[in-house]
């Protein structure tokens, strides 16, 4: 097998893997709805809407430090 054939197989394999990953990601986002920290993805919009320096963060970094 020459380098060009290897490249072609690698290319096809990469495409298949990326397609699977993309669909897995869509499935994950729309079925789980929440991330590993239990926060609904849609709540992250509030990072822009409530962005005064005194507003409460959606997920504060200081919460981690307290744990």
């Amino acid at each position, binding site marked *: 097998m020459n380098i060009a054939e290897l490249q072609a197989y690698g290319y096809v394999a990469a495409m298949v893997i990326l397609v699977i990953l993309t669909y897995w990601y869509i499935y994950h986002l729309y079925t789980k709805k929440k991330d590993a920290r239990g926060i609904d993805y849609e709540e992250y919009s509030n990072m822009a809407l409530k962005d005064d320096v005194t507003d409460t963060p959606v997920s504060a*970094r200081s919460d981690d430090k307290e744990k």
Partner: protein
Amino acid sequence: MENRPLEYDYTVTKMFMFTTIVLGIVGMLIGVILAFELAFPEVNTILGSGVAEYTNFSRLRPLHTDAVIFGFTLSGIFATWYYVGQRVLKVSMAESGFLMFIGKLHFWLYLVGVAAVVVSLFMGITTSKEYAEFEWPIDIAIVVVWVLFGISIFGLIGIRREKSLYISVWYYIATFLGIAMLYVFNNMEIPTILGTNGIGEAGFGNWWHSVSMYAGTNDALVQWWYGHNAVAFGFTVPIVAMIYYFLPKESGQAIYSYKLSLLSFWGLMFVYLWAGGHHLLYSTVPDWVQTMGSIFSIVLILPSWGSAINMLLTMKGEWQQVASSPLIKFMILASTFYMFSTLEGPIQAIKSVNAIAHFTDWIVGHVHDGTLGWVGFMIMGALFHMAPRVFKREIYSKSLMATQFWIQTLGVVFYFTSMWIAGITQGMMWRAHDEFGNLAYSFIDTVTVLHPYYTLRAIGGTLYLVGFFIFAYNIYRTMSARPVEESELQSASPMGA
């Protein structure tokens, strides 16, 4: 010293807002001059033949493109980063003396770089690579400026209060990484003074002169991998970062689907980098590279429209805001032009369409409905949103904003419609032949036919420039307009009559 509550610090934002406006004027003014030069060749020597070297099309063209790309757009990206970055990470620049120093250094070195670019391009010093005309000393300076931008991004992220990174921050990070990679690899060059020719002579040319490290087709491939992705990571990714922050914030509406924004982000990242081959259709690069460029360009519609539709749906139930607020108008039109040009681009990348479109004015039209309609409108919209918050004053005049909006929209429509007709006419005339295969037209025949459209394009460009002057005046007057209270700045920006 009194104990004052913590506030965001917009010092660096203001500095970059200033260069956004000044370099926008410079770049767009040169663009309008170029448009008139194409329509009326005598404009090339309008200041006399003695200085024709400095006023002709070929000398000014890279100044136009580089001033709007690396001047106006980059300044807009930096200005919005230093604004959005602080707010969505909920950390103030004032909290870190180091980051404040880096931010200011970033601005001043950027300004030095801009001066070097303007002077060198006016003198005709260029590597002759499109959008990468700067010689090696300036390239090194630009890399330093970019590293400072990176330190600012990751420094601010390092001291953030908000654990998760808002979608715009992802886009800014992608801008930083994407441009860093593209710029370094495309500008690999060897100063000729270090070179030796075939018979052993060394030290050619001026100390600043260099040649690309790649040759022939490889150079073309790397150049268009760079050129197309400069559009991706300069004109698309950071502008999407802006709209994901400024449209929801100004309208007070949450993003229609945050999940869709994540999906579109990764889609765009994976697909965009492969599409550059469409600039080299029917050239000497391997056929499969051309086909891949075409296919990935078509696939690119999906993530692009994912973001654009997400923005339009963010306005769901609130469309009256588009009618009542000129600022929302700017952003919605930007989003619409984004959809429009991300559909037009893939169509042009189809091989059979490209056979007509390649090298014609249709391409120029496509670039400008993207840059004038999408990039320009979004950056101006972002500056309008930021101005009341950084100056703590209402926007000077709502009616001037509306006037500017309609003048510029008309300008963009003039621009792209004239270039559509001109481009397709050109493409068809170049291909036309008689029954024996002899070409039906010579090049000058097309030039004669295109003259009216070139004139219309120059009028369109002038309208956009007039609108930009109105924008600059409005922002300038905002600095001394009626002061506003913090409570007036929650979502919709306060505007004077």
